């Protein structure tokens, strides 16, 4: 073993502490530590990979009271999502390089990455919960301190809503651990040991408690109302982390906790959960169509995209699961790029309404190119990453419950119906009288570098998805029905 798993969350945490103490030099510290974080993920993910392809690394500490113990484990799904976290964190630091913000900004981002990494690593459910909740605090401050006009309301709403889900999840976990103790006499929070069979008749209650906790985070309609506010009011980099990684926690929780513990109950719940997921794709797309604010539109599109992920994951077929997992990464890349570009627009013009611009393509050709590229990736153009994820998710859903797949396909069509007109209105339509397009300058080298990286990845996944699918497949094999 070259690096212990603990490194993965300790490095950004130390980064947060260093950033908070460095004053005006803190962004340099943030850059160094995010690069180190990404390097650590690379080392663990690529070099420590056992030859059989399945990556399982464990790290176990001593048992404390009530069987709580510090247990980390990582498989390819965890490492993939931690890689996404580290990558987007670095992107966020570079993208916000010229913002005039205090040291706390950088510290919050590093702390957020540390907590997110902990969620993806924890195998002890107690630590899973602690990390899960710890993600809320830095994001609360990111939205509240550096967000836009309505940030105060959005920050509190975000925290309360997602905390509601977590409390339900915690009660479900407590019931599970207590039942396990009553049946076996052993206190444990170890995910690999806990047996939901000990719950008896309380099992459905516990299952739905967990699912509700995860569904708030995903978010699944009708528990989504915190998302548009939080995404719209957060600073651009905050939206990237929120959409890119924090929403993935919900799907990860389903994949890691709810589905393995309750394989039969979750299959029985497919009509309800899958129905809500399909409804989310359509509802999110319809809401996105009605928005006049670019950022809010992308926020609603996230609800639709996560609906696809869920459809794939819930289908419990090999292609659905790997497609859903890949779609988690895809959504992080494309939506991240879109949020960043809206952020760049907002920095220049302090506007982000659809009707505030027009004819931007002639003024900012690079921005137009990247925005168009990401929009096409987002709506699932073949050859780009979105297509692979959506296609596999939907084909998984088709073999599980065909009705859901048809509903999902309707959602794909709707995606084009909101994304393309928005792209057209901002970049090609003639500028209206209130247009602020004149203030918009084209992207500078730093911004282009960030977007080239993101677009390159989108193209790579789109053209050659096989290594990516092969990366995720071993971790999900056990969940196939």
């Amino acid at each position, binding site marked *: 073993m070259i690096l212990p798993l603990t490194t993965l969350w300790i490095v950004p945490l130390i980064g947060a502490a260093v950033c908070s103490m460095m004053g005006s030099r803190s962004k340099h510290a943030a850059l160094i530590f995010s690069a180190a974080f990404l390097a650590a993920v690379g080392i663990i993910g690529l070099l420590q990979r056992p030859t059989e392809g399945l990556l399982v690394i464990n790290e176990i500490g001593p*048992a*404390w*009271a*009530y*069987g*709580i113990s510090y247990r980390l484990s990582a498989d390819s799904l965890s490492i993939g999502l931690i890689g996404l976290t580290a990558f987007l964190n670095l992107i966020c630091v570079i993208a916000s390089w010229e913002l005039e913000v205090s040291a706390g900004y950088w510290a919050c981002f590093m702390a957020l990455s540390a907590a997110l990494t902990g969620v993806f690593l924890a195998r002890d459910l*107690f630590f899973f*919960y*602690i990390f899960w*909740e*710890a993600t*809320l*605090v830095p994001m*609360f*401050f990111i939205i*509240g*301190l550096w967000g836009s006009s309505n*940030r*105060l309301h959005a*920050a*509190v709403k975000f*925290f*309360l809503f997602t*905390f*509601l889900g977590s*409390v*339900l999840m*915690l*009660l479900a976990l*407590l*019931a599970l651990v*207590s039942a396990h103790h009553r049946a076996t006499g*052993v*206190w444990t929070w170890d995910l690999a040991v806990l047996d939901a069979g000990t719950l008896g008749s309380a099992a459905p*209650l516990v299952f739905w408690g967990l699912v509700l906790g995860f569904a708030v985070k995903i978010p699944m309609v009708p528990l989504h109302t915190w998302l548009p506010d939080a995404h719209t009011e957060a600073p651009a980099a905050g939206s990237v982390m929120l959409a890119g990684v924090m929403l993935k926690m919900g799907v990860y929780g389903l994949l890691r906790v709810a589905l393995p513990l309750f394989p039969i109950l979750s299959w029985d719940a497919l009509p309800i959960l899958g129905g809500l997921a399909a409804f989310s794709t359509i509802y999110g797309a319809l809401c996105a169509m009605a928005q006049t604010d670019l950022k809010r539109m992308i926020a609603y599109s996230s609800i639709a995209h996560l609906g696809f992920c869920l459809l794939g994951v819930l289908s419990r077929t090999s292609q659905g699961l790997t497609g859903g997992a890949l779609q988690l990464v895809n959504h992080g890349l494309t939506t991240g790029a879109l949020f960043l570009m809206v952020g760049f627009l907002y920095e220049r013009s302090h506007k982000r309404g659809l009707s505030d611009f027009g004819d931007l393509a002639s003024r900012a050709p690079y921005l137009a190119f990247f925005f168009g590229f990401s929009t096409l990736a987002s709506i699932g153009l073949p050859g780009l990453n979105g297509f692979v994820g959506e296609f596999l998710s939907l084909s998984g859903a088709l073999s599980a419950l065909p009705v859901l797949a048809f509903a999902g396909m309707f959602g794909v069509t709707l995606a084009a119906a909101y994304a393309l007109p928005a792209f057209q209105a901002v970049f090609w339509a003639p500028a209206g009288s209130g247009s602020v397009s004149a203030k918009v300058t084209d992207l500078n080298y730093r911004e282009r570098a960030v977007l080239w990286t993101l677009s390159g990845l989108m193209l790579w996944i789109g053209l050659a998805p096989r290594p990516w699918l092969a990366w995720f497949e071993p971790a999900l094999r056990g969940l196939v029905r």
Partner: protein
Amino acid sequence: MMIPLGPQAALATGVLGTLSLGLMRRPPALALRALALVAVVSSMIFAVWAPIGAFPSLIILCDAKSIAWQCLIGLGSLPLALWLDGEDDVLVALFLGATLGMSLLVTAANLPMLFIALEFMSLPAYLLVARSRPGSRGVEAAIKYFFAGGVAGALFLLGLSMYYADTRSLAAAAALSPLGQAGATLMAAAALFKLGAFPLNWWLPDVYEAAAPEVSGFLSTAMKSAAVLFLMRLCELAPQAKFAAYLPAIGAVTALVGSVMALRQERLQRLFAYSSISNAGLLILGVGAWALAGRPADGVIALLFFLVAYALMSNGTFAFIKYAGIETRAQLKGRGAMLFAPSVAFTILLFSLGGVPPTGGFIAKLLLLWRAVDANLLWPAVLGGLSALISLAYYLGMTRELWFEAPQGPEPKPDSGAALVIACAVGVVLLGAAPWLMSSFSGVPTR
């Protein structure tokens, strides 16, 4: 050196010493403050050394709970001991007297002794409230407090006489007729009164709002801890009593009512008074779960942990109110940047009160609700979790005002006591590392 009644002796010496010093024309302020501090600290030290086992007289008992609670009361009253105005010898004597009453309450072995200790604790507390803040509001609150306490005392006496008429016993009794049941219920009502359980909570916000912040901190921690043990002793003395079955529901409702009522409060001390009602609700739920589960040791640990965490959180928040010299939520706006370190500490305390990990407040709520889930009290636990969620709305709201909003009004003139706020926050963070600490508690299963 094991001295029976050591803690009580230390506190009584403090009271007598203070009163003697008060006979001088100008009592030396420093000596009075030192005396208060030494009395409280030595009561904690003596408590740890106290010999375990009941005394032959059956009036006083000394068990693991009384020792733990003795230390808890010391922890809750230390901030006030540090802060007392040494110019006022009567105030010091009242404070030490109330603390002595609490420490008698936690060692009382039978029902009359419980009653005497209850009154011993309450009478100085009324005067403490009246004297801690000059003006008519303090007196008004003290009178209200006095009447509420009088009702509680009367309920207890009535219950005691009914209980005695039924069982011919002033201590534990096995079987109870309906008369004895009614008596036990009335005695429990007195304890619930002291804790501020719904619907017996009407006096509490007025009192906590009118008293000086540090006195409210003292009442909400030390006094509340003593009242929790009071309720637990009643459950022990009358194990057949039926009131225990209703405690979880009462606790859950109290927790909800406290959280909901705190939502709309503008004055900080009143808000934290309702927050203290909400926390008392969780404690009552914890006592109920403990009593219904057959009074296991880990139920006591959960209550104890909650009380320790709450002693830090409540004293810390009231200390911040005193330090920042503010009264309303509007005055919090923009204070974060002006009073940076204490505000960070206050924010940590708020998150802890809201039960956000990784803080002591989270572990405390977790342990307590877990005991409830374990005792098959799922719905009270869900309601308790809901109340924690509602309470987050105003804790986050205060965080928002402190950090995110632009300052209004004049520059704050900070008082002393920043170190205390920070110390409480550090304590809460350390308690958040509870899995490490918890394994060292005796009686907690480690596997």
